[in-house]
């Protein structure tokens, strides 16, 4: 629900501000809004959410979140073997998982997948609602 709130707020904001922008630009904005709302709903206890929030705080409310990102994070000594597990692709996919252990990486991946699924379902439902609203009008 936090995600829905954030995302819908972002969508409305984007709709208001980018009526004259290109489609691609709006797509990009909506995508960023989706990821940001994902990260906001997760909070700062996940590495990927922190990395996402660090990337592009487009909305004013996001600037408050930078306080969360400044938490000190202990980095344990990681053995080489742990990092070279063949999970490089996964590290690239999941944001903020660069110097991570394979075990932690899998944790982050699980969290990320859960959030992604939520976001996808949210966006789909929004699309449904809009399309349902849209169709009768057309």
């Amino acid at each position, binding site marked *: 629900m936090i995600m*829905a*709130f954030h995302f*819908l*707020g972002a*969508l*409305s904001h*984007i*709709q208001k501000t980018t*009526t004259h922008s290109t*489609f*691609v630009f*709006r*797509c990009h*904005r*909506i*995508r960023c*809004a*989706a*990821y940001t709302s994902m990260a906001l709903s997760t909070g700062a206890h996940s590495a990927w959410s922190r990395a996402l929030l660090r990337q592009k705080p487009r909305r004013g409310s996001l600037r408050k979140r930078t306080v969360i990102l400044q938490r000190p994070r202990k980095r344990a000594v990681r053995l080489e*073997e*742990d990092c070279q*597990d*063949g*999970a490089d*692709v*996964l590290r690239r*996919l*999941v944001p903020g998982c660069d110097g991570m*252990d*394979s*075990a932690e990486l*899998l*944790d982050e*991946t*699980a969290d*990320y*997948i*859960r959030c*992604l*699924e939520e*976001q*996808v*379902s*949210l*966006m*789909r*439902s*929004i*699309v*449904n*609602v*809009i*399309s*349902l*609203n*849209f*169709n009768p*009008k*057309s």
Partner: protein
Amino acid sequence: MLRGQLQCLSPRFLLFCSFPSSAASFSILILILLLLRRRRRRRLSELKNIAFSPFACFSRRFFVSGMEKERFFGGGWKSAHAGLLPEVSAFAGDEHLPHSFVGFGWEQPVHGQEAHAQQLESALSSLVSSPSSNAPDGNDSVVIRELIGRLGSICNSGNVSPSSRCHSAHASYYSTPLSSPPKLNLAGADHQRQRMLVNQVAAAPFLADQGFAERAARFSCFGAAEAGQLSRVSSRQSLAKEVAASYAMMAGSSSSPEASSASEKLTAVVAEHNARKRKAAPKGKGKAAAPSSSSAMDPPEEENSDSKRCKAAEAGGADKDAPVKPKTEQNSSDDGNAKPPEPPKDYIHVRARRGQATDSHSLAERVRREKISERMKLLQDLVPGCNKVTGKAVMLDEIINYVQSLQRQVEFLSMKLATLDPQLEFDTETLLSKEMHQVHVPLPQQVLFPLDMATSAFSLAQLPLKLAENPPDSMFSSLQLPPIDHLANLWEDDLRYVVQTGFPQSQEAPFSSGALRAE
């Protein structure tokens, strides 16, 4: 100290290869005993009053025994003691000790060539048992007794290695001494390590002489028992390997390839041993040895007692194996050790499994691997359709594919929203209210979503005319295309997702399969 000692030892071992078997064995055993003395001595000196007494006992014992070997041995010990005792009292200058001792070991083979292996055995056993016999001496004998008791406990933990028959004999041999001492507080952790060590040594298939092998195992355990910490099992392993290799040298006559391989092995093992850090060994080991030595019998009677203990100990050994926790994962880099020691590390307590290596490195690796497999199982539940998949690599691929597909869906849904937004008056409140209804219901039933999405996609797709003709592989390039193509590609992508999630839709099946094939 130990590193220096071993570094001194390794060239000695190499040199001893060239010696005749008995002399080499003798010198090597002396070296081992020296190791034992030194390590135990460190702890004894900590106790402050105990350092001198065991050596005094030994020298006394040797003078009393009157055996030629023993006398010589005692003489050698005595002269060694002269150098050792001040060291012990000063608790310094560890490097001097091996040199002086090795000097003795060097000289002794010259004299002791006539000595038989059994005489050597008896001398060594008397050496070990002497502190126990001198019960009134006080703490040191108790320490030694406990140490030997721990030695017994080593073998008591049980025999898993089927390779050696003397293995069970040795294990059973030490079990009864273990049962006797009641005050083995630290025994639990040490015993398993020692067990493994003893098993390693005893498992040497080339040890023909069972009694001799028993002695060797005992003494190696004796020395190893005082070595490093629980986490330094490998150091003891290497020590046992050294002993075993030296015995191999001896038992396998003087064939040069054996000796050279043994020497190589020794040097490698010693180097490995030196590379590891050693923490203070628990005192309880010394205590454990003492009671076992007290229960240890005189050389001529040992064989008889061994057979008795064998049967009693095997039962005890079997019991020891029971509390070992079973685990699912197997360590591929096993050393083939029979016993699982319990190394309590500083921050993670890990119990090695039966028949697995007890390296600190391999243990850490095993822990890490088990962590990863746990998380993989969790991910299997998240990622749909991964129940049948086994293996990390395939599972990893599936996870990557799923994450990529989810990310793609987010992209395309955002594109959908981008196209839909300007065409609609975006009322947040109404949307939210409708959203609440829709989100709550379908979330637990994700199967409905593809249907809704498909219908909506169909409705959306009917607007553009070029729908069916859009090639499926223009999906990614659609970002630059007009929205119509976006919708079509979105539709195809959603269909693909539908197929992936296993939602059966006959209408989309041909499209989806085509899309899949095209991808």
